[in-house]
């Protein structure tokens, strides 16, 4: 398929990849924003969405450049965690995204893989930036994470470079159905096991997971799911002696 695509097609794909990287560069901020929406309804503690947006926006637009200038000017003011996130994580990725526009990607599989891994490493560097470093010759809590984080940045940059310099595989095709339903089944299991108990949870999760394949026959799946649930309900709590809620909480009370 890749052969039939002309030059313009490659160009649009580069733009898409670059846009993807920009999104990746803002992913932690977006994640915190979505998380903070919960605070409106009183779920969990944390800052509200408005504070999150303003803090990150100022950090991204104004805070970080001024911090850079400040450090050149010799200012030793400690940067806030938002500014650090922008400096350590978002800016390098924006740079990569811009550079991507001007590159010929020979192996998208390696290039994208390398850049995403680099994002993870940068994120780890940010996450360990508040930890203590070396104290004399003894390691602080942050020394090792920073050491390995830096190493991973270098290695993943190397992988991305291989993707630019050598021919290789294009991006693989991702299916959505399998991952979606399998993960949905796992998440349902995690949320439901305490309130609903093993019997209900195992059966429903089984059916959700079974939806992940288009070859599933419903009656057959329901029968096997019921048998499996019965088997698990005997095996885990009784034979193996692992404590586990069995039935929905509201039924027992």
């Amino acid at each position, binding site marked *: 398929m890749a052969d039939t695509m002309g030059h313009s097609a490659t160009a649009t794909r580069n733009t898409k990849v670059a846009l993807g990287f920009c999104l990746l560069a803002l992913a932690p901020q977006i994640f915190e924003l979505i998380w903070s929406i919960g605070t409106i309804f009183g779920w969990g503690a944390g800052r509200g969405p408005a504070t999150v947006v303003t803090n990150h926006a100022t950090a991204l637009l104004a805070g970080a450049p001024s911090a850079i200038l400040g450090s050149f000017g010799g200012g030793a003011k400690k940067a806030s965690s938002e500014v650090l996130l922008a400096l350590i994580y978002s800016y390098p990725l924006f740079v990569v995204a811009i550079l991507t526009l001007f590159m010929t990607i020979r192996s998208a599989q390696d290039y994208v*893989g390398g850049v995403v891994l680099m994002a993870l490493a940068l994120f780890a560097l940010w996450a360990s930036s508040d*930890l203590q470093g070396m104290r004399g010759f003894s390691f602080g809590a942050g020394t090792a994470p920073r050491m390995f984080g830096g190493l991973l940045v270098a290695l993943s940059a190397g*992988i991305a470079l291989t993707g630019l310099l050598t021919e290789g595989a294009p991006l693989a095709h991702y299916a959505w159905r*399998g991952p979606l339903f399998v993960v949905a089944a796992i998440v349902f*299991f995690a949320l439901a096991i305490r309130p609903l108990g093993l019997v209900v949870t195992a059966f429903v*999760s*089984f059916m959700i997971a*079974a939806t992940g394949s288009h070859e599933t026959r419903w009656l057959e799946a329901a029968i096997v799911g019921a048998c499996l649930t019965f088997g698990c309900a005997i095996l885990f709590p009784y034979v*193996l002696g692992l404590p586990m809620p069995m039935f929905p909480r509201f039924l027992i009370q």
Partner: protein
Amino acid sequence: MDIFANLAHGFAVALSPINLLMCLIGALVGTLVGVLPGIGTIATVAMLLPITFGLPPVGALIMLAGIYYGAQYGGSTTSILVNIPGEATSVVTAIDGHQMAKQGRAGPALAIAAIGSFFAGCVATVLIAVLGAPLTKLALAFGPAEYFSLMVLGLIFAVVLAKGSVLKAIAMIVFGLLLSMVGSDIETGASRMAFNIPELADGLGFATVAMGVFGFAEIIRNLDAGAEMSRDLVQQKITGLMPTRKDLIDSTPAILRGTVLGSILGILPGGGATIASFGAYTLEKKLAKNPSRFGRGAIEGVAGPESANNAAAQTSFIPLLTLGIPPNAVMALMVGAMTIHGIVPGPQVMQKQPDLVWGMIASMWIGNLMLIIINLPLVGIWVRLLRVPYRLMFPSIVIFCAIGIYSVNNAPVDVILAGVFGLVGYWLIKHDFEPAPLLLGMVLGPLMEENLRRALLISRGDWSVFLTRPLSAVLLAVAAGLLVLTVLPVLRAKRDEVFTESEN
């Protein structure tokens, strides 16, 4: 003789009814896992970890060990009869084994695979018993600097023996090391990269990550291809298990070579059963008078790899039992199992827990004997299992995994984390990253950091300590040499050749 006394003690432990039962269960589950494609050994051991909580430590470890080497037997059955490998370790067995089955010689192929595995298993058991004590003595001379260098060597071995790009494999190890640092710092107690999430304060559970990256990711990947895998099962009844005289003569040298190669590769850190079977197949093909027979049903192509993978599966226990360093991902899970039962793996285990070590060694021999019975006369039952369609199997595996992870800590968050790592694993597969080095890095991470810190503290911050202590310097030199050799073009081609065998 010390060894005989120790082995006798081991057999006394292993022959107790409860341990015999555990050994049998392990062998049965291992065979089951090996036969069924789509569930790997790593995921199974991770899944069954919580089950062993209630058992005595010796029984638990005997069972988990049984699963590992049992899977090596079971994998060959699927490879020979269905032409899809039940396990990564029996990929090459499928090449010649399935051809033999098509020619109506499934019986001899299965028999040779089992006989080869049994022989290799016996040799490996003796090897563990012989090498155990001296290596333990060596380990006692190790200081933190040596331990750190040894782990570097182990990780480099993992890179050399991993499939695909060297750079990617190293990156995966470092990623694993980073993951291992989530949670509380061992020395200062500071919370690292935990984002104030209480469940992360204790670090990422090793079983959780293993289950996600190997269990869930594998399922998701298989669903991509469509749940129905093409299974051209050899339908005719398997008759005549006995190999002919010529078969035996042909395969004996292959079994011997496979056993030697497998034993060596198993001991090396980073090695393990997969590389052993690939290596053995390449070796047989190189040595054969008429290499064109390979791929058309050469019995050596079954005997060599099957002996090698079983030998390697067992000898990989040596570094774990003597040095306390897991050489591959399954052994890493065994460390987890030992820790759960309050046993700290390391050189002291041999002295402090003779029951455990020698009981496990003896049980391996017993387990191999059981496996040959489980696999040969009962092969019909296992074949019938293969007819269970994947569309019913995969939701069952998902549920089993979920219950398994939940019961480790009774924490729903662990289940969600495993799901997240399932997606991470799927992404890694899509970008051609090997997940096994990641797991190894994650296990060795805390050990490495601790020894590095300690070594530098003792040397008062002088990094040259790793080069001035002779043992450590030798280990590091070997590691550096290996890395250079792997990157050299000539050897790189050789390494790729070993792994491309399956794609013909």
